[in-house]
C-alpha cells in the first residue's frame, strides 16, 4: 500500500514536471530536436534540472541498502553495452523524432484527453507487446 501510494505520488509529480517544463507538448519537443530550423533549446534545461536533482538523489541512494520506506534498493547493475541497447535506443529516437512524443509525455497527453495521444499510446503498448512476443519466441528457439 505504502509502495503504491509512493508510486502514485511520484507519477503525479513527474506529470506536473512534464507539463510545467513543456515536455508534454510534442510541438515543443520537435522544436528542440529541429536544430537546423529555428531551434528552441528549452528542453536542454529540463534535462539539466532533472539531472541536478537526480545526481544528489543517487548519491544518497548509493549509500543505502534499504529505501526510506524500508524496501530493497533495486538499482540496475548491468554495465555491458550491447547491440540491443544501441539498436533499441536508435529505434526509439526515430519514433520520438517522428511525433515528438516519448512514453511519459504520451501518457500525460492521454490523461489530458488528447485523441492523438491515445492513438500513440495504444501503438506504443502494441510495440511493447510485439517485443514481448519476439522475446518469448527467442526463448523457445
Amino acid at each position, binding site marked *: 500500500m505504502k509502495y503504491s501510494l509512493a508510486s502514485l505520488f511520484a507519477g503525479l509529480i*513527474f506529470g506536473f514536471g512534464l507539463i510545467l517544463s513543456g515536455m508534454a507538448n510534442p510541438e515543443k519537443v520537435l522544436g528542440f530536436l529541429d536544430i537546423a530550423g529555428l531551434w528552441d533549446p528549452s528542453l536542454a534545461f529540463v534535462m539539466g534540472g*532533472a539531472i541536478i536533482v*537526480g545526481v544528489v538523489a543517487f548519491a544518497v541512494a548509493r549509500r543505502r541498502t534499504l529505501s526510506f520506506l524500508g524496501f530493497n534498493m533495486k538499482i540496475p547493475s548491468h554495465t555491458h553495452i550491447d547491440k540491443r541497447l544501441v539498436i533499441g535506443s*536508435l529505434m526509439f529516437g526515430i519514433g520520438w523524432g517522428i511525433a515528438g512524443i516519448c512514453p511519459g509525455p504520451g501518457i*500525460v497527453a*492521454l*490523461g489530458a484527453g488528447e485523441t492523438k495521444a491515445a492513438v*500513440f499510446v495504444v501503438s506504443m503498448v502494441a510495440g511493447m507487446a510485439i517485443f514481448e512476443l519476439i522475446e518469448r519466441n527467442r526463448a523457445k528457439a
Partner: protein
Amino acid sequence: MIEIAWSNFTPWSALAGGILVGLAAASFLLLNGRIAGISGILGGLLTPLKGDIAWRVAFMLGLLAAPAVWLLAADMPAIEINAGYPALIIAGLLVGVGTRYGSGCTSGHGVCGLSRLSPRSLVATLSFMATGFITVFVIRHVLGV
C-alpha cells in the same frame, strides 16, 4: 549557423519543470528504491507478476491524473500534436519496441541513468538523441513535410 527561436525559448519553466521531474524520480528512488523509468514501468504490465502490478498501475495513474489535478490550480499549457494518424502509429510502434529492446527511454536512461553516471545510459541517450535529431532533420528539411 544555429538560429535560436527566442520567442519560444522558456528556460525558467523548463528548468523548474525539470527540477520537478528530478524530484519525482528522487522520491521514487528514495522511497521505493526504484528507477523511475516510464517505459519499463509500463512494459512490465504486459508480463504481469504477482505483487508487481499495483505500484506500476499507481504510477501510470499518477501520470494520467496530472493534467486534471493541474487544472485545479492553473490553466493547462497547450498540447500540440501535429503528426497525422499513420505517423503516430509508426512512431508509437517504434517507441514501444525500441524502448523495451533498449531497456529504457528519456526518463530511465536520460534522467535516471545520466544522474547515476551509467555508461549504458549515456550510450542509450546519445543514440536516441542522435536519431531524434536526424529524424526531425530528414522530415522537416529533406522531405520538407
